[in-house]
């Protein structure tokens, strides 16, 4: 495990591979403390006071923990749900996680939660909304957070800038970091026919504090196909290759294996994270030309 002084301030995760901890593996973590450098959980699953929270508190001593939100809806024009934000802030105080993140997307409007990472247009208005919401999020927690690039299946006619530029402006305006999901870059690049490596080059200078890897699948619609990000299979060979490129451009970074549907035995997740860990160990140090982060 490398020391983390080269990470931006939004991430105190070890530069090593972790896994997403989901309910089917809770009992195994409670009983066996499997060997993995760090774990990430979905924040929203731990906002009650039940056994899940007891487990997370008990795991604090053995693992660095990342709280990854899926429901704050940072892209909502309505603003953030302050009751939800308060619950997240209380959990963050209790767990003192190594990283806190959510997504560049929206999921709530007029009091309805759609349980999906819906895309926002990449324009000035959405940037202002996202920036204000990210700032409110960071102020509530008293720390910098990371935002994750989404997989998208559509684009808006009124988007007037590319996703990496939007992310760069968001990071610059708010001081937040980027959680770079390599699978999402690949899925969106294939779905919208842009150059995934060019995307990585465009975000290489941003304060990236964590990488995500996961599986996706190809769905046929008529005689065409589209890639769907479902976190339900091993990381594809294409995404492993793109991960190699990301490590070459960005240097080694904390890397998470995510699996959310058709969740396999823990051994399979641990094997995927070991594969990422082996690549991390061989990754060249961050290029000297890259901006140093405070």
């Amino acid at each position: 495990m490398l020391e983390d002084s080269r990470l931006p301030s939004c991430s105190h995760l070890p530069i090593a591979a972790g896994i997403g901890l989901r309910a089917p593996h809770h009992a195994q973590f409670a009983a066996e403390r499997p060997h993995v450098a760090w774990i990430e959980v979905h924040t929203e699953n731990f906002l009650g006071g039940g056994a899940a929270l007891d487990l997370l508190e008990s795991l604090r001593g053995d693992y660095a923990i990342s709280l990854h939100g899926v429901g704050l809806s940072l892209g909502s024009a309505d603003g953030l749900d302050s009751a939800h934000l308060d619950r997240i802030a209380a959990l963050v105080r209790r767990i003192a996680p190594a990283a806190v993140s959510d997504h560049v997307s929206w999921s709530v409007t007029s009091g309805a939660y759609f349980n999906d990472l819906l895309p926002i247009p990449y324009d000035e208005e959405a940037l202002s909304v996202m920036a204000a919401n990210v700032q409110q999020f960071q102020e509530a927690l008293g720390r910098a957070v990371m935002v994750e690039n989404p997989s998208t299946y559509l684009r808006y006619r009124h988007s007037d800038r590319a996703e990496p530029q939007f992310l760069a402006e968001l990071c610059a305006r708010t001081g937040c970091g980027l959680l770079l999901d390599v699978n999402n870059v690949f899925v969106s690049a294939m779905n919208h026919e842009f150059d995934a490596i060019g995307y990585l080059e465009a975000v290489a200078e941003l304060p990236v504090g964590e990488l995500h890897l996961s599986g996706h699948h190809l769905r046929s619609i008529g005689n065409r196909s589209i890639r769907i990000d479902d976190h339900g299979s091993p990381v594809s060979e294409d995404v492993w290759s793109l991960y190699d490129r990301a490590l070459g451009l960005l240097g080694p970074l904390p890397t998470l294996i995510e699996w959310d549907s058709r969740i396999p035995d823990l051994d399979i997740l641990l094997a995927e994270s070991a594969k990422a860990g082996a690549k991390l160990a061989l990754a060249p140090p961050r290029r000297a030309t890259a901006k140093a982060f405070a």
Partner: protein
Amino acid sequence: MSAGMGLAALQQAYRDYLLEGRSDSLAEVIVADAFDAEERLRIYRNNFLIGLGEALKANFPVTMRLLGEDFFAQAARAFVLQAPPARPCLFEYGEGFAEFLETLSDLAALPYVAEMARFEFARIGAFHAPVETLLGEAEIARVPPEALADLPMRLAAHVHLLELRYPVEVLWQAHQAAEPDLAALDMAPRPHALLVCRPQRALVAQEIGPDSLAFLAAARQPTTLAQAAEACGSEMDPERLGRVIGLALQHGLLVSG
């Protein structure tokens, strides 16, 4: 290039589309290329409906088994469209699902299914309730006897009281087996009150009598020991009241204030 749509209007247009299937205004602002706007939007609508259907399945597993996977999926879809979650914590999702099931006309053969949904929702509510400092015997012992009657108290957040017609808890237990043996179960109506709570680590589901139900139901609102005891009826003798309070202290059903 279209003039676009403001973000609030865009999000309202998604609401119209996801809940009601109206895509006209949304489709206009989406780039159509290899796929048209409808095809692209449908991916999101499927994710929305399937994801929340799965969340209901996770929260109501025995209800799902009673209804069968296909019927449950249809009912869940209709419920999601009618009552999407108000909050992003999906372990809380499903308020009103039992009442929704009661409105389905083709469930006459399973009259207890809505009560099963109520029981399962009470279970997850108890399971995820916030941690509170519960009144136990030690706390009560510290109260001067003359102040006991006026002790302010209310029901703890983990406590759920269900008034049921059918023995759904027995049916739920039977369904915990890999191959449930349901032949011996008598599902004839048998009105009773069920206490569902999680005082420590383990969930408790226990039948309670009318005294306990009246006392605990009174404590849904902030009250005092004397007022809650009054709710049990004027002829309540100290011995019966003692049993009720004993139950409340044993399972940590009350908090002060």
